[in-house]
């Protein structure tokens, strides 16, 4: 259930952020369903071979964002908010779009150009049957 | 709990030093055999060899069982166990004393048996034999104390050289004491006041060495 978490050494972001991201991804793609119990802080720390305090921080931030819920004595679970998975997935899209816009601005592209590029990318993927 | 830790350490030392102990006993017994056969010169050689094997054992044990523990860095392993430096010293002292006494007593008793069973050796030599046999025991205590307190091969070597070179001098002095030498040839063992005095000062000096060792060991602030 918690296999598959990996930390890249070349990823300079703090480990707790990487954990948060990977948890959000699992919820976004539906591997972890709404309301589903998740490993306790200590258990995840042991499984990932990282410090308890790092997992604690990841869980704390995730709870603040309303993504998971921790109940004292009962462990943690994915928030039961309906549509959470989809919402997270959309958040991911937003982040990518913002980044694309930022880079396009650095390159001096106008919004219309960016739109065209987006359409072209979609066509390319469709050609390869990837979407 | 306390006494069982000391027991564990003693047994551990015995197990580790099986080889040197057995070797010294074997050598000593061979020496005794040689001391009994035929020619006078060979017998003399045998007796000297007997004495020497006790001295060698006395020098070797502190090196092997005490200094090596520091040199080979196994001391940290032992001190990570639930023991204090005082308990360590007690256990170490007892284990090497036992390691020495076992062959020492074996050889001494064998020598006494030889004297008992053979008609041509007067029993008058017995007190002298015992007094002389005590010398390597005292030397052993001095060397062990030096190894424990001094914590290095250097100190052990100094003590070893001092002791080994003093044996002959002590032997010479004791053999020349008229009150002791007079009774060599008697058929019966004679324990006169002089013999008692020498023997008790020998035992007393061992007790003193032990007390001094404990005093210094317990005052150490940096055990490792």
């Amino acid at each position: 259930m918690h296999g598959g978490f990996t930390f890249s050494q070349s990823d300079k972001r703090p480990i707790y952020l990487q954990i948060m991201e990977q948890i959000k991804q699992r919820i976004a793609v539906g591997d972890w369903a709404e309301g589903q119990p998740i490993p306790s802080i200590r258990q995840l720390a042991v499984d990932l071979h990282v410090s308890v305090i790092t997992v604690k921080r990841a869980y704390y931030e995730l709870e603040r964002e309303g993504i998971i819920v921790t109940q004292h004595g009962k462990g943690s679970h994915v928030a039961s908010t309906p549509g959470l998975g989809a919402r997270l997935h959309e958040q991911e899209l937003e982040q990518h779009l913002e980044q694309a816009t930022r880079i396009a601005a650095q390159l001096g592209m106008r919004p219309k150009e960016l739109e065209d590029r987006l359409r072209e990318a979609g066509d390319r993927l469709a050609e390869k049957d990837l979407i | 709990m306390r006494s069982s830790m000391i027991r564990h350490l003693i047994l551990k030392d015995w197990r580790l030093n099986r080889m040197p102990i057995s070797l010294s006993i074997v050598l000593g017994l061979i020496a005794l055999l040689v001391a009994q056969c035929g020619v006078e010169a060979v017998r003399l050689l045998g007796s000297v060899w007997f004495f020497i094997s006790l001295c060698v054992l006395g020098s070797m044990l502190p090196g092997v069982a005490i200094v090596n523990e520091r040199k080979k860095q196994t001391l940290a392993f032992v001190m990570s166990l639930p023991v204090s430096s005082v308990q360590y010293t007690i256990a170490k002292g007892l284990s090497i004393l036992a390691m020495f006494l076992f062959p020492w007593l074996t050889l001494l008793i064998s020598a006494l048996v030889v004297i008992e069973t053979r008609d041509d050796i007067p029993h008058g030599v017995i007190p002298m034999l015992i007094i002389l046999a005590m010398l390597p025991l005292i030397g052993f205590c001095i060397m062990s104390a030096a190894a424990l307190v001094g914590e290095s091969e250097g100190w052990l070597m100094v003590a070893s050289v001092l002791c080994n070179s003093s044996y002959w001098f002590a032997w010479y002095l004791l053999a020349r004491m008229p009150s002791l030498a007079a009774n060599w040839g008697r058929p019966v063992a004679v324990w006169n006041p002089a013999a008692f005095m020498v023997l008790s000062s020998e035992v007393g000096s061992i007790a003193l060495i032990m007390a001094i060792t404990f005093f210094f060991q317990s005052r150490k602030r940096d055990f490792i």
Partner: protein
Amino acid sequence: MTDLATDLAVELRGVSKKYRYFTLDNIHLKLPRGQIMGLIGANGAGKSTTIRILMGLVHQDSGEARVLGHSMPAEQVAAKWDIGFASEDMRLYDSMTLGWHMSFIQSIYSTWDSAYAHLLLKRFGLRADQKIKGLSHGQRVKAALLLVLARKPKLLVLDEPTTGLDPVARHEILRELTNVMADDSRSILFSSHNTQDVEQISDQITFIDRGRIIDSMDKEAYLDRWRRLRLEVPLGIELPALPGIIGVEQQGRLAVATANAFVPDLAQAYESTGAHVQRVENMTLEEIFIANVERSREEVEA
């Protein structure tokens, strides 16, 4: 005795020790129960001395050392029943087998877990019938760790447990150390100059350099305080000295500012002077370690 005292697995207060060429000066350290502390320092910084003092092997000149509630070195025997110690300069008996050592430890401690010991033998790739003198360096380290891990002590004190090990062995050991944390009553204090290991598994970090503690705190909070700000400085603009910035390196129009007390306002403070903040980066523990040591040595020399 209040609960507060026993909630700390390790507590050092004002501990000092003077040697001929080295002084350990006024060491303060706190490790709460159930946590892992990584002690980082260069070679000769004082890590081993600090550890020896808290094991009761060396008597401090001043200050208090309490381990699992016991005062050290006075109560070292009681404490050592619950402490598992392994250090880089510790050796096992060459002429004996690993199995003999395991039996020896088992005969002393009732908490020895045979099943776990055999599992560790497999995981570490060791055999009980091997003599210690036939083991490679990495195997010896693993053997010593096996002996302390299998007893499941309340506190593990490890002096450089991963030094000199190949990446696979390091990974095996880090895995076993984090496994210990499944039990929240057990704690670990380990020293290392491998910042990656410390960054990965420590809850608390303590930096020690030349006998003095530079920093000692919660790892996440600590990492959060440090940032590198990459700045673009137009000609004619001079960068101001800002609180929380411990150093700025500038070459031409590009500058790198190192912050050890970062707040988001700092980036804005730079922007308001006309400099442009290109990036704000997190720093690895190694980068923080080096920056810290350099700063601390400058301060001492000043």
